[in-house]
């Protein structure tokens, strides 16, 4: 990888972390480009361990990790580029929301004026202005989550690492927060998000990293990952007026392994081992005689991918 590439990527090289004899993560090799990257996996899969490794809160047992070219054991440089919203639901005692963010900024060495300005800007971004002067001890779970988010993004980091950032947020704030992530990603920054909620991950992620028992089981764009799972044929749902005719045409293709007419008689579910050939064939059919209303992948999402790769018990 070129030097410029290193300085634009998060790199994990044969990264392992053991807690005594317990495995945290093992032999992780990743290259994470800018954009929204989701870490997906059940409890204990290694998501938080990987994030803590990325931020130097814990140190690798083996291997190396670089964040935009920086080592993670140099917090003085690392956290000028990185903001981390942890899952740790505890705060220095006695602080208000504003003091929490402001004090964090003072640790950067910023003066009062700059710290004050950046603190209020971050608090506004997470919609917590009215509660900012209240003690964090009196905050709801969602408010605590938002003030942590404000702390993570108050210094305008190039890499935003967020451990279950949408937990406890109401739908409106959740939508605003997702919009904020997208805004960050659109500016060419890294947003690393861990989540259990797969449909949310599917909705916001540019790429996903699937973790299970400390190992990366798949990574990349979700559609790319799905197409590589050959033992599970792709499922495609087609809505059309002549499903019977379409089904008979489908059966003539060797890559189509199953066709089921939908219960309402207005569509069919096709399973194919070669999605590319299937879509080319479908274009021909549509151009000839069958009126096709919609075509949509039925299992081209994180949920299905996760189920295929890890199994039912892994899906939350």
């Amino acid at each position, binding site marked *: 990888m070129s030097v410029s590439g290193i300085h634009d990527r998060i790199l994990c090289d044969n990264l392992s972390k053991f*807690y005594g004899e317990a495995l945290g993560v093992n032999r992780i090799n990743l290259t994470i480009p800018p954009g929204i990257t989701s870490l997906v996996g059940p409890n204990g899969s290694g998501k938080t361990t990987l994030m*803590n490794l990325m*931020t*130097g*809160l*814990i*140190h690798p047992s083996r291997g190396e990790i670089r964040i935009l070219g920086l080592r993670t*054991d140099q*917090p*003085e*440089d*690392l*956290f*000028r580029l990185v903001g*981390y919203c*942890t899952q*740790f639901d*505890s*705060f*220095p*005692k*006695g602080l208000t929301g504003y003091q929490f963010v402001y*004090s*964090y900024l*003072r*640790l*950067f*060495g910023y*003066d009062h004026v700059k710290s004050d300005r950046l603190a209020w800007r971050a608090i506004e971004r997470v919609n917590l202005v009215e509660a900012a002067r209240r003690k964090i001890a009196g905050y709801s779970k969602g408010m605590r989550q938002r003030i942590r988010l404000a*702390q993570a993004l108050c210094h305008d980091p190039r890499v935003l690492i967020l451990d279950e950032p949408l937990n406890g947020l109401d739908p409106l704030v959740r939508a605003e927060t997702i919009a904020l992530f997208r805004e960050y990603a659109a500016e060419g920054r890294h947003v690393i998000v861990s989540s259990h909620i797969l449909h949310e991950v599917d909705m916001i992620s540019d790429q996903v990293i699937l973790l299970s028992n400390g190992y990366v089981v798949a990574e990349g764009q979700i559609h790319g990952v799905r197409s590589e799972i050959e033992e599970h044929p792709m499922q495609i749902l087609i809505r059309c007026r002549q499903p019977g005719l379409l089904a008979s045409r489908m059966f003539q293709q060797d890559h189509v392994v199953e066709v089921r007419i939908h219960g309402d008689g207005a569509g069919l579910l096709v399973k194919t081992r070669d999605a590319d050939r299937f879509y080319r064939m479908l274009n021909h059919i549509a151009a000839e005689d069958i009126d096709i209303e919609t075509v949509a992948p039925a299992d081209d999402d994180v949920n299905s991918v996760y189920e295929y790769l890890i199994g039912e018990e892994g899906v939350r």
Partner: protein
Amino acid sequence: MTGLHWDQIRAVIRLEMRKTFFAKRGLWVYLLALAPLVLFLGHAVAMRFVNLSRSHLAARNEKPLSSTDFAAIQEGMSRDEVIARLGRAPISYEHTRHSRNERDEREEWQEQIDRYSDGQSDYRFTYRDGKLAAMDVHGGCDFGRDSIIFATTFQLFYLRLAVFFGCLGIFMNLFRGELLDKSLHFYFLAPIRREVLLAGKYLAGLIASVVIFTTSTALQLFVMGWHLDSNSVSNFLYHNHGVAHIAAYLGVTVLACVGYGSVFLAAGLLFRNPIFPAAVILIWESITPFLPALLKKFSVIYYLTSLCPLSIPVDSGAPSLFTMLVSNPDPIAAPAAVLGLVVLAVLILFLATRSVRHLEINYTTE
């Protein structure tokens, strides 16, 4: 150290101050610091009352009396002779005493008690059959005796227990307390070198401990002289090295905080349970007099006792533990003691920086 580092240290100190001074669990540190002050204050208040009552008694003498007048009084003198020299006693009363003789017979006799005062001391003359049978003198306080009491309290209780455990409470909590509260990651997520963070926390702990314990030392010294007359105080201050002694006690208190602060900051990084390191260090500090010369240099109390202005006199019949704790067979010169203690603290803090560099946030194991 750059300007940025100093700004960061100030930010850490600002955050830590609130916790260190106002933590509920730190209340006992104040109690430890105030314990000897309460002792000396109680003594001072009691002595103020005693002095006041002696002044009132002296004012009721038939004529002004000084200690020289009382020195002329001898046992065996008749009551009339005493009255001729001192005048009638302002307080005089009789009472009947009794005991059993060798044949187990009850015996009774009259005693005449006369009480005088010269304003400083209380004199109680007991007459039997018109002759002075006993002369009890209850003297006032003097700085010499009080200084020894202060030195003993300072070395045995204040340095070895109050400052020791106070620093344990303040400095061990700087990192260990935040690990237990699960809030240390707040600092570890900031762009601050771990060494700078450690320096900031140490200075915050040092400021707190120095303020608490030197204030207590200063107040103890103040109340020690509070009940004495101004002549005694100025005599002590300006003719008996009083100023130098006060400066030495305050300096030793500061150095105790420097030394024990570094020890317990490092212990807080290395040990989860404070009891074990506290016990080991307490024993180590207690056996310092018996350690070889080289090992003594790794003891904080060795330097501190060398800097204390007064050595505690030990009677031949004193308990061996007391003798062990107050003995300092080979004290070193003050400049060497200050330098040695500072070097020891820096060395310990250097080791602590290595530990904090490798410290991980893994709250589940705490």
